[in-house]
């Protein structure tokens, strides 16, 4: 597990905020908020917007370099996210979902991890080739993150207000210090926190798991990002709270027009929210399709296997689950040919010999399997 990424500046003394910086032009933040809402969340424009590509990743390869050897963590991954839509990333642990997400904004842990090839196109900019200084304008402002474990991502010695105002200070310069309190209350209300005035002054340990995750969501929504990357946002939460957080993410998508990249190992969670779904296995995307298409007719044997692993109503003592045999291979230890072939129930000779390319059996579906090569 990589260290949680700090998307705000800790070095900046908090005093500068309290003592008051020079006030920017007095813009009414509430008006601003309404403006955003109208601009991005309008129901009519949504349909139109969701056709435009916000992020396009082409042939991204991220490697871990060890003793001169390159071990691919993310291998030749291509996908896109449309504006105001949700892309779900599903796969088992160690498949490279999180590494893909971290590669997007250059947050890879350590010097040994690096992007070897590929292009990441965000809003017309190739962001893996720009300077770190310019990237900082995008990361944390245009692209924000929510991580799995909310309790480890919040600073335990600062109260919620201090942590949230750092984001405001960095990215919403039009909000003056006097307005901050009111603005933050509004933000906490937006993510459904009860009695926000009180909660602003509490510390992370005083909040429940669900509230912490809501604070994290509020923090990542403050700069009004165009893309929100939610990495297992509900895995650590109870079922009832998970349901609320999923509904909240859906609401935020509709109201603010943000696009969401949702990473989860739970197919049910992915199915609830996603417009497009990418299935990852051993560092590669093995299937990428429109959600309805993938859910109704999965083509890759791994995707089919995942669906069959889900316990359903019709399963009972006689009718057992069909588990995929074996385990996910470790990176650097991938089998030759198709990486899934040792576990695949439908394998044939060709699978062990050559890696299949991404075939397009339907216009909205890409599958990395020889069975779809015709």
């Amino acid at each position, binding site marked *: 597990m990589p260290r949680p990424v700090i998307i705000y500046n800790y070095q900046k003394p908090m005093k500068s905020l309290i003592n008051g910086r020079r006030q920017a032009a007095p813009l009414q933040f509430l008006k601003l908020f309404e403006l955003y809402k109208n601009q991005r969340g309008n129901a009519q424009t949504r349909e139109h917007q969701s056709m435009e590509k916000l992020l396009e990743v082409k042939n991204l390869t991220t490697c871990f370099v060890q003793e001169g050897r390159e071990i691919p963590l993310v291998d030749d991954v291509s996908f896109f996210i449309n504006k105001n839509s949700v892309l779900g990333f599903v796969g*088992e*642990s160690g498949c490279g979902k999180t590494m893909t997400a971290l590669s997007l904004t250059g947050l890879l842990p350590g010097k040994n991890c690096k992007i070897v090839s590929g292009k990441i196109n965000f809003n017309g900019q190739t962001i893996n080739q720009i300077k770190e200084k310019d990237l900082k304008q995008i990361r944390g402002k245009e692209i924000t993150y929510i991580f799995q474990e909310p309790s480890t991502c919040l600073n335990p010695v600062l109260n919620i207000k201090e942590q949230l105002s750092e984001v405001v200070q960095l990215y919403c310069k039009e909000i003056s210090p006097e307005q901050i309190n009111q603005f933050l209350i509004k933000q906490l209300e937006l993510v*459904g926190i*009860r009695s926000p005035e009180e909660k602003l002054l509490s510390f992370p340990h005083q909040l*429940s*798991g*669900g*509230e912490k995750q809501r604070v994290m969501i509020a923090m990542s929504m403050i700069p009004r990002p165009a893309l929100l990357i939610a990495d297992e946002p509900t895995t650590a939460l*109870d*079922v*009832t*709270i*998970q*349901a*609320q957080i*999923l*509904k909240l993410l*859906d609401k935020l998508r509709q109201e603010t027009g943000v696009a969401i990249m949702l990473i989860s*190992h*739970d*197919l*049910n*969670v992915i*199915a*609830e*929210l996603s417009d497009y779904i990418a299935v990852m296995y051993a560092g590669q995307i093995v299937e990428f399709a429109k959600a309805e298409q993938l*859910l109704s007719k999965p083509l890759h044997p791994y995707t089919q*296997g*995942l*669906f*069959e*692993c*889900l*316990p*359903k*109503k019709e*399963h*009972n*003592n006689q009718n*057992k*689950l*069909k*588990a*995929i*045999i074996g*385990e*996910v291979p470790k990176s650097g230890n991938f089998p030759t040919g198709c990486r899934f072939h040792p576990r695949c129930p439908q394998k044939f000779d060709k699978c062990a010999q050559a890696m299949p390319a991404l075939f397009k059996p339907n216009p909205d579906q890409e599958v990395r399997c020889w069975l779809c090569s015709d």
Partner: protein
Amino acid sequence: MLRLNKISKYYQLNKSFISAISKKIKAVDSVCLEIKSGQTLGLVGESGCGKSTLARIILKLISPSSGQIFFQNQEITDLTEKQFRVLRQKIQIVFQDPYSSLSPRLTVKNIIAEPLQAFKQKKKLIEPRVRELLLNVGLNPEYADRLPHQLSGGERQRVGIARALATNPELLILDEAVSSLDLSTQAQVLNLLKDLQAKYKLTYLFIAHNLDVVRYISDHVAVMYKGRIVEQASVKQLYENPLHPYTRILLNSMPSLEKKLLLNKTQTPNLENQSLQPDNQGCCFYAQCNKAKAECAEQIPELKQIESGHWLSCFKPKEV
């Protein structure tokens, strides 16, 4: 096989001279349960509702404040450690996190052999028994000399199961045993548990929060909320006809492939921050229930059988 009669576990708050009356937190509150031999009881509820405390009470790792535990028609509540030792072989547990529940410095062989040694198994019998156990849980016997860090999550959980099976138990408590596993390994382990149950006539107490998994493995399900059992029924009854408002909320909160959760526009009530209140009167779900009546605040509804095998603790199940 196992019967719990009004088991409670209270924890004292404010243990000081100053406060005259010390408050009590009811971690587990008069729980009555029954597990029949060879069956599986699923226990569901949110984190902090007392599921694991109950498991520990059954194992006698902590002693209950009141109530009785019957195991094979014998009361074990007040047995001393020495007297209970014989029975301890019959009740075993598999823990949630396969990473922290196996000692990193012991080989797989030693991990599985430990309960055998503890119960004075003859030395020359241990090695073949470990081999047999490894084969039973679907691991290659060559794994015996490996260390836990060389195994994957699913393999570790299998070692945990093999260790629990070492003493030929009759009741196996599975405390979130598949929660931390990946989807494909989870399915493998679930199938393994079913096979083992059929082979050795095991009885399971299956604690989990994933309702789909519980439906798959259980014969009966008990729903727990704030230390109390609010509903208990057979799988069919509970999933097709849930009666307690909390059970309904739980079932409605499950995300599904058919997008039931987001299509369902009704707001899921906020159950956050409902920590255990000391000495509360009335129904434990009163504050969150949207159909609550005055009597719900004053009296605790008892767990009553409303139809054969369906137990419920709610005053007005029909109206809800």
